[in-house]
């Protein structure tokens, strides 16, 4: 056992003396995770919120007076132009509306995805829908019918997810995904360097000529791989938690189709049992992966060959997680 610990210590000293490796494995995830995870959603939610609150100009042609008033009521400023479609295409207006032969045609630049144009189009659609409902209700009243006839019943969608799943939101998927990614990438660095890397550098033969059973050599290297994999996983999760806190502080989140905001890291808290389960799962994953990666590394003849074995291995472990993204996240975790 002493030989195993001696090897374990030596491997970690080597890793911790490589500043570049240490930075990319332990520091970078903490710094980048908040930016990658929550930056886009935060940026998007700010953009959409701003677009909804501002008054935007809309190119119009042939609109009746009541439609112009409805647009103004929806914080839009109608600007008459000869050809609204062309005006939108040229980027002079985010949206345009034409009324012709009893139909409203709304124009927007929608091909570029969610942006200000789409928000304004939605505002225009909302304003015209409200106008339509008001006119139908007025006609019903004139005909002596109650306007409630428009809504004979209500439809209400209720989120029946368990409280933990609701609190978890996307994190239920992201947590295992990034845990696997960081555990694999952190462990791989040590596994490859300590095995195929040693072969290539010519240091392994000196070790194998020492009176240490091969199984102890493999065990020492596996333990070092596991330790680094766990540290990398912790660094990744720390980055995720920081991103969650940042997101909660500055109002980030991911909008659903219904306009709700999914909870991310900021609303998740792990109790003792959950934390223990998380750590145990990460440890077992790291242990298994460490053993597999060290075995592959010892089998490989060079650094490059070992790395070529590791890439499919990562895909193999990420494949089940892609299923989680398509199903209920909690069933995978």
């Amino acid at each position, binding site marked *: 056992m002493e030989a195993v610990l001696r090897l374990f210590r030596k491997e970690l000293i080597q890793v911790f003396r490589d500043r570049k490796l240490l930075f990319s494995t332990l520091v970078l995830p903490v710094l980048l995770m908040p930016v990658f995870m929550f930056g886009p959603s935060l940026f998007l939610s700010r953009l959409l919120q701003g677009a909804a609150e501002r008054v935007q100009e809309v190119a119009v042609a042939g609109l009746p007076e009541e439609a112009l008033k409805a647009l103004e009521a929806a914080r839009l400023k109608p600007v008459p132009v000869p050809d609204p479609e062309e005006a939108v295409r040229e980027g002079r207006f985010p949206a345009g509306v034409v009324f012709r032969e009893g139909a409203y045609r709304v124009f927007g630049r929608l091909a570029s995805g969610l942006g200000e144009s789409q928000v304004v189009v939605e505002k225009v659609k909302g304003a015209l829908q409200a106008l339509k409902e008001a006119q139908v209700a007025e006609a019903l009243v004139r005909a002596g019918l109650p306007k409630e006839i428009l809504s004979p019943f209500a439809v209400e969608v209720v989120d029946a997810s368990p409280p933990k799943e609701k609190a978890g939101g996307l994190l239920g998927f992201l947590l295992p995904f990034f845990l696997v990614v960081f555990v694999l990438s952190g462990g791989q660095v040590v596994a490859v360097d300590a095995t195929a890397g040693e072969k290539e550098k010519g240091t392994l033969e000196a070790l194998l000529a*020492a009176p240490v059973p091969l199984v102890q050599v493999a065990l020492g290297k596996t333990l070092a791989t596991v330790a680094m994999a766990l540290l990398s996983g912790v660094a990744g999760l720390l980055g995720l938690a920081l991103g969650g806190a940042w997101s909660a502080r500055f109002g980030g989140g991911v909008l659903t189709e219904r306009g709700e905001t999914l909870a991310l890291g900021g609303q998740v808290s792990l109790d003792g049992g959950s934390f223990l389960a998380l750590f145990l799962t990460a440890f077992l994953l790291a242990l298994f992966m460490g053993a597999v990666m060290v075995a592959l590394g010892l089998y490989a003849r060079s650094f490059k060959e070992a790395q070529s074995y590791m890439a499919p291995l990562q895909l193999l472990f990420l494949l089940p997680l892609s299923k989680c993204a398509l199903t209920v996240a909690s069933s995978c975790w």
Partner: protein
Amino acid sequence: MVQAEGLTKRYRKAVAVEGLTFGVGPGEVYALLGPNGAGKTTTLRLLSTLVRPSAGRALVAGFDVVREPLEVRRNLGLVNGGMRVYERLTGREVLEFFAGFYGLKGRAFLGALDWVVDLLEMEETLDKKVGEMSTGMRQKVVIARAILHRPKVLLLDEATAGLDIFARRALLDFVKAYRDLGHAVIYSTHVMGEAEEVADRVGFLHRGRLVYEGSKEEALALGEGSLERAFVRQVRGA
């Protein structure tokens, strides 16, 4: 100290060495000579338990290389030209790391360290990281690692490869000094001049077979004062 009998190593498509029988006693330098690909490295890898023989047997310090590999490794030191040590560790850390495998700790380690530092004149290399050392200094650390536990048998395989003239001279002097301490040394090389300087006995290896074995003086007489000439004559005659 070393006894090989019919030692053979076959791979799927090739025979690396076949039927090697030779012995090396204490206080003796045995030069294993031959061109590249003759089987010198395989022979030393067999003796140091890094590969298993396909046939035959070998004893190192009285221990069988197949049945008692750990005991064999405890009693030998191996240095080859391509061998390196950990670049991010200092010379002292490298030596302490390996010394632990031989049970050298605390005072025992410090005593061994003093001895090896004196023998190899490597005082200035101890606290430098290996990655910052010159080739000669690195090679001294490699050698120090191999002899720190004072092995009864020292195996050197093309150990002067890549060394500058000073480091090479230091290594040849060290081999003679280590022999004089009563240890057995197998010195494998294709540079005949080195063997002429350090060897007591020589073995000519050609295409995996030992084609000649005798004292250095006998071999020199055979080649009219040149081991190289002796080798060529033996190989052509074989």
